[in-house]
């Protein structure tokens, strides 16, 4: 008999149904939470400078992020907050404010796919500094990464550490004693908006064209800039 398939009475059916609905609800909740999960946002503290309000953003780029992220071998940016290094690529910046960026790059040279992106654009003063030396363009083969917010017209190429430099960094976060290049520059955020930032140097070793993995995953070489 067909009825034998459903031996339960109505209360039991309702109980099974309620359990099922609750289970599906919990699963959907977990699923949605998983999808919304990304790197924790970071808001650099405001600093009072001569030219009015400004913020300092201090970053380092490392060849392998190690224990700080699920994919230990991937290149990544880190931010410095109260003297310690965190992995965050989601930054909140105030609108119409000067942002003084310092990037300590510990990674080697990868090379740009498009050499045009080796020239800086969109900076206050028109140039950036490598270890204090003002520069506007670097050779494509010297580039390790770029810092680029295309929505704001900002792009800065990042000089790579020479392969034969002593004291190469092994483990992220990299200590300042290890070989690195220091890049400093300032840009103005402009009006409020939601932007992405990315790296244009194909630095994802092991992926076709060097674009993949860390180059296509928020939290490594990509992130958001929320200008508020």
């Amino acid at each position: 008999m067909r009825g034998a398939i459903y031996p339960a009475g109505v209360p039991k059916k309702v109980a099974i149904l309620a359990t099922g609905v609750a289970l599906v609800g919990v699963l959907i909740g977990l699923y949605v939470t998983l999808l919304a999960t990304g790197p924790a946002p970071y808001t650099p503290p405001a600093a009072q400078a001569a030219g009015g309000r400004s913020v300092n953003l201090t970053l380092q780029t490392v060849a392998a992020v190690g224990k700080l992220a699920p994919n230990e071998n991937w290149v990544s940016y880190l931010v410095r907050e109260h003297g310690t290094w965190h992995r965050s690529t989601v930054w909140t910046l105030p609108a119409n404010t000067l942002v003084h960026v310092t990037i300590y790059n510990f990674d080697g040279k990868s090379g740009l796919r498009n050499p045009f992106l080796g020239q800086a654009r969109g900076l206050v003063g028109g140039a950036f500094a490598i270890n204090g030396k003002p520069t506007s363009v670097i050779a494509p083969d010297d580039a390790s990464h770029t810092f680029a917010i295309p929505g704001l017209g900002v792009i800065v190429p990042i000089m790579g550490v020479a392969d034969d430099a002593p004291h190469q960094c092994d483990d992220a976060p990299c200590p300042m004693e290890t070989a690195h290049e220091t890049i400093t520059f300032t840009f103005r955020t402009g009006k409020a908006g939601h932007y992405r930032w990315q790296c244009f140097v194909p630095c994802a070793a092991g992926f076709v064209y060097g674009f993949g993995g860390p180059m296509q995953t928020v939290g490594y070489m990509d992130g958001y800039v929320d200008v508020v």
Partner: protein
Amino acid sequence: MWSSRSHGWRIAALTTIGTAIVLPLVVFVLGPNMPPGKGTPVATSQVTDNTVLLVVMTPFTVFILVYLGYALTAFRAKPGEEGLDGAPLRGHFRSQVAWLVSTTAAVLFLAIFGTAELLADNGAGGGAGPNPVTKPGGSVLPVQVIGQQWQFTYRYPTFGGVETATLVLPVGRKIAFHVTSLDAIHSFWAYELGVKADANPGVDNIAYVETKKISTFHVRCAELCGLWHGYMSDTGHVVSGADFASWIAARKRQFAPVMKYLPKYAPSYNPDPTFRAG
């Protein structure tokens, strides 16, 4: 109950009246507002093309909707008829032939019309590959569009191969977009210009357009190209010849430092790395 002949006349009459009402609306109200607007001659002829498509569709659409509406009113089972069947009709040769002839005529017309438009407009603004079948006569300004993950950059080979991050075009010129890519497949879509051409690595995909008025247009990537595909958009400008000359001179000064690093202008580029390993 009317005879089936009078049903037919009613549907024909309603279709004719409906078409007579809708057709002027399509031609005079909807047609001029069809995309992509009248920014360039190519875009204008796309608007015309869209209007022609609508005009050809209108009688068929009106007929089918009138028929459905009529059938659902006149041929509904009335109370008391629940147990009864309809007439056992299995086909009607003349109406089938009429349908076949009219749809075939419409389809052949559309194909011939589309082909004519395609040839007359030198590819109708679509990417026509490295050797387009028809090319515009006279002087053509080549502009290279380079897609990369995730930004378009532009090169002007007749201006020393200068590369820029923004697209500016002189008004009243024939333009040949040479669209290529450095990595994945992108698609260069300049909406108001009526131009769309895929950017394939290693391919020089050419699309022609003629600028007609000083304006601003939107550029978007129209082929899913990875993480920031949705952010791959910018704004281009059509400016006067004088403004263009000063703009390009300013860009040559601005990007003079990087010029020595740029590869020689080529239809496509082969940057490293190419494979996964390495």
